[in-house]
């Protein structure tokens, strides 16, 4: 299944500066794996050391949060859009 993944601004630096890209995957987990295989650096920004999605990063299929679907196992349909939505706070320099 070809699906579109929208990369948020803070993570574009780790994804070849792309706003969105297409991957072939049957589930959300597969789509994110395909993404992190292509962009190794992205992995630590998406997953904690225990392999779970980080709690300040949410993943949506179309407009639905995968935490309320079947999480990583959420099935994809041709043309679905996956959005990665990390929390952003504002302008303060850290």
């Amino acid at each position, binding site marked *: 299944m070809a699906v579109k993944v929208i990369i948020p601004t803070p993570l574009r630096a780790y994804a070849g500066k792309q706003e969105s890209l297409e991957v072939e995957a049957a589930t959300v987990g597969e789509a994110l794996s395909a993404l992190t295989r292509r962009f190794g650096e992205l992995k630590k920004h998406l997953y904690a050391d225990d392999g779970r999605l980080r*709690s300040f990063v*949410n993943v949506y299929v179309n407009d639905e949060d995968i935490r309320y679907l079947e999480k990583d196992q959420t099935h994809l349909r041709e043309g679905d859009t996956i959005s990665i939505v990390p929390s952003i706070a*504002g302008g303060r320099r850290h």
Partner: protein
Amino acid sequence: MATKIGIPATPAAAKAAPALSKDEVLRYSRHLIMPEVGMQGQLKLKQAKVLLVGTGGLGAPLGLYLAAAGVGRIGLVDFDTVDYTNLQRQVLFGTSDVGRPKIEAAAGHLRNLNPEIQVDQFETRLTSENALDILRDYDIVVDGTDNFPTRYLVNDACVLLGKPNVYGSIFRFEGQITVFGYPGGPCYRCLYPEPPPPGLVPSCAEGGVLGVLPGIVGTIQAAETLKLIIGVGEALIGRLLLFDALSMTFRALKLRKNPECPVCGEHPVVTKLIDYAEFCGIRGEETPVSDTTTTVPEIAPRELKARLDRGDDLFILDVREPHEYQICNLEGTLIPLGELSRRVNELDSSREIVAHCRSGKRSAEAVEFLRKAGFRKIWNLKGGILAWSDEVDPSVPKY
């Protein structure tokens, strides 16, 4: 999702039936001739009390539009002073305000814009100790802050007090807007149970914000606030609006109340305000996130200048981004930190190397990395190009 909105009428609002003066009728006439607002809506605005946390990029358009619209009482919370870097986006302030407390400049501007309203000033940092007392008097809280600890503090305080929290946040070209804390609706912790650890927050190299972005996001927050007060339309309750100024797109995602939310869920474990700096992994405001800056060998700006003047053979390595190099540079060789690992072969480990960035943080990481890679004659320029400007060459611009 059609959520019936509106703020609960306070006892004071129920008994007082204020009317608009002749001047106010004239001032608000473009509201009054719209049936969706009308006299009833305008009186609701006049009786409304809204607290703005932060008077920066988001607070500026919020303050301006809420004051102009006739929100009867506007509270402002900020502890900062206006500086030159604010003027690119914080349109409440002018050049003559630089150095003034933001709250004073903002309140003066809003009172001038609309003398009919009351502006309350809280010149303080919002803390776990004062938040409930400050928020308690207001109907709606608007979050225009710029950091995670304050956002979690505002969220928890709003949930504990049962007040809507009109949320907006920005990063570079992108914004997120929603309404948290509305009775029955989700809160910030339903969306993001925890903040990012400080090390993963984008560094200053990737930061920055398009000047107009907080204007767009702040005016959307203002629109939501006005809708909540007047009780019209569908508020962004249970919807997260994402805005991207580069592609110029808006997308709305569903936002659900998490039954297991630690603060607004069925069995809340957070029942009072906590230490939010600790929660966000930050100990002390100025403490660097990693200890790298203090553990790598350093060279002070004046010492570097003296050695360069002596004609010592030093290789200056600038690990900032190309667009930063264009702002100012020390004529060093540019290899951005993110490219260092694959371009390390461009460096000669037999030469003495001084690495620098803007403030010394990224170059400390570079020095640590290169030391691990076997480089021994390498130093970090203490305080970066900012310190160089302060201590050696004031003609180098700071940014």
